[in-house]
């Protein structure tokens, strides 16, 4: 953690002020991510406590279908990669490249969400709903919360693309790109846990 006197003061006047404000916001976002980690950790914990409480219904082994989930996982991992390419384009100062890669990222994100919604609808169609038992309550809530985060990310990056096309690359949009990319990678990391501990362990 940097000491304040090592760097120019955040709210100080002068033209440097804006830049430091952006640093402050990035730092704040890191702390927000800590809180989001704890939020997911809590949901994982509830899932683990409940994942065998099927109240007589079928368990994870019977209802999860791995192939679709593996495809979903690859799509999300790829989107994390393309969001990294967007940051590289930003660093190279290419607005076109940046917007292009962001578009690819949210398209992949939308595919992921589409597949997840399909999976949920199929489960509901087969009679496995959030109401069925504690295991499914935990499952839908954990995976659904991740899905809601991804959807929010899609809206967020869309808004950012509009701002980029209006304002170009400025310290403000630059910070926003960094923050959304951080957020996107974070969701990817959470998904790896979902994939491993919910799906892979569930069917094994």
């Amino acid at each position, binding site marked *: *953690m*940097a*000491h*304040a*006197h090592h760097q120019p*003061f*955040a*709210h*100080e*006047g*002068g033209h440097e*002020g804006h830049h430091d404000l952006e*640093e*402050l*916001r990035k*730092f*704040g976002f890191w*702390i*927000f991510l*800590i*809180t*989001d980690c*704890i*939020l997911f950790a*809590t*949901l994982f914990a*509830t899932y683990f*406590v*409940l994942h065998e*409480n*099927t*109240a007589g219904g079928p368990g994870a082994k019977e209802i999860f279908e791995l192939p679709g989930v593996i495809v979903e996982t690859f799509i999300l991992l790829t989107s994390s990669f393309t969001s990294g390419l967007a940051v590289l384009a930003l660093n190279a100062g290419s607005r076109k490249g940046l917007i292009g890669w962001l578009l690819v990222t949210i398209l992949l994100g939308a595919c992921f969400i589409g597949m997840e919604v399909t999976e949920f609808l199929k489960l509901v169609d087969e009679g496995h709903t*959030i*109401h*069925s*038992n*504690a*295991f499914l*309550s*935990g499952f*839908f*809530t954990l995976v659904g919360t991740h899905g809601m985060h991804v959807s929010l990310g899609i*809206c967020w990056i869309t*808004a950012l693309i*509009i*701002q980029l096309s209006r*304002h170009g690359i400025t310290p*403000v949009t630059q910070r926003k790109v960094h923050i959304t990319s951080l957020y996107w990678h974070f969701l990817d990391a959470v998904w790896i846990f979902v994939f491993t501990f919910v799906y892979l362990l569930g069917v094994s």
Partner: protein
Amino acid sequence: MRGGASVIDSIKDFVSWFFVTGDPLIYGADVAIVLTTVAIIFVLTYFRKWDWLWREWLTTVDHKRVGIMYIIASLLMLFRGGVDALLMRTQLAFPDLKFLSPEHYNEVFTTHGVEMIFFMAMPLMFGLFNIAVPLQLGARDVAFPFLNSLSFWLFFMGAMLFNMSFVIGGSANAGWLSYPPLSELTGSPGVGEDFYIWGVQISGIGSLMTGINFIVTIVKMRAPGMTWSRVPIFTWSVLSSCIAIIVAFPVLTVTLALVFLDRFLGAHFFTTDGGGNAMMYVNLIWMWGHPEVYIIVLPAFGVFSEVVAAFSRKRLFGYGSMVFAMLSISLLAYFTWLHHFFTMGSGADVNLFFAITTMIIAIPTGVKIFNWLFTMYRGRITFQTPMLWTLGFIPCFVVGGMTGVMLSAAPADFQFHNSYFLIAHFHQVLIGGAVFGYFAGLYYWWPKIFGFKLNEPIGKWAFWIWNIGFYVCFMPQYFVGLDGMTRRLSSYGWDKGWWAMNFTSTIGGFLMGLGFLFQVWQIAHSIKFMEKDTTGDPWGARTLEWSIPSPAPLYNFATIPVVTDRDDWWEEKERIAAGKAPKARPKLEPIHMPKNSPIPFIQAICWFTVGFGLVFHWLWIAIPGFIGIALTMLAHSFNYDTDYYIPVDEIKRTEAKAGRIV
């Protein structure tokens, strides 16, 4: 449809379901609410103050004003929660009294707990954070002023939503932590629990954002030269409290969301059927709830440390150990939650672990008590009200802490569990620790906030009445608890032999109420008669906030101070007294400030709308609310015009008005 009569009937049905009816106390409250609302609207219109209210307060992002709003709101909630307490004490004054029905009593104790923790203690604490922290750091605002305003309005709307429940729809009655299965649909089919869930959820999100905001502020916005070993001790306490907030509050968010899913979508997290596990709720809520206790009390420790040093005219004894103690408390707070349910059959090993961690936490707390005592030792103590509350706190907290150690002994806890012994213990640490601390802080920083001191003689009366009332109220409860009286009882028989102690306790409760009235009188009297403080430093205090005029100008510091010592302002005064030249000040420059914004207020109203719609399962209200939240977020994201500069001339004029030459 069968014509007009049935329409009227269905309207009648709706009204009698929607509004709480049948209780004279509630009708009284209805009348009071309507009259107050009318009076406020009348005054604002008559004096043409709507525009002023909007520009200066509702849309403000100034941390000092946000702090004042927190304090006003929390004092109103203290009144509301206090009335609840007196209702309960009245009911318990005599055996078999028919003052409150058992159902109403359940609602009152639930509301009392929720009000006091979520809507009194938390906002009063945040009010002090807002007032003091940026000023102590030599900063011009918090890191995220917009977010700060949003945090306040979320708290406010959450509180309003919860408060509505006792006249509309019906209050929660499952206790302040709302344990399932009582709080499930099967146990509470009405809307009271939903009001609880959304009132607490919305304000809790605000608290979480405040935690993030103040961590960033403290880590990144300290004045040049303010190394970690020079950070004022109150600010350290805020940092440790905020660390606990960011780790604990997400757990609360999830817990409330899960119980809502149970009620709204028929999920089975905590239900008795479908494989749900009610015990998991208790674990989750206390994983938040126990750190919450320390979140509330750590800043009070910070206040005491500031006050003890200022009113003993000595440097705080054991600064390093104080910081270490606070940080270790914020860490240890996570490993104690299970002591709230030793009796639930977790097994001897688990109980043992949590019993030991609970006892360990008494050690850093003890360290602090000795630090305060050693600070006073050979100090030149003056007994003004902030110091009185600090002195009143020490014996109170020592007794409360020791009964806490008694409770933390797992085998003994099987006896004390859920008895009035516990009630007495936690009121002693929360009132004696947190509330006394916030009062001390409020008296201490009052001149900084408003530019005048509160009347000392009335304040001393208030202090003594409060303190005597406190002991008269809670000491008997330890004994009636050991005699077997359990909590949440609305009535008891003459044959129990609890009457005398309960009656005494009720007298104490009313004495505390009287103490509060004295404080109200004190504030009203002081607004009218107190002289303006022109020094900016009426106590002769030690830290940076006292180096600027009172009340602090919009930008706080005309030039950002360069810090060379702990207690920098005190050292500066000593240097000047010794005839040395004061520190050189840099030239004035235009000051960069955030612009006011209506978005936090509007967005909080949208949250309120969502909460209200979901409470009644009316999606036609909730969905527009959601859309409003999304739109306000986008509006803020697309707004690039968020700040401005205060020109040098204006700074000079402002400082000259406060009697300063820059």
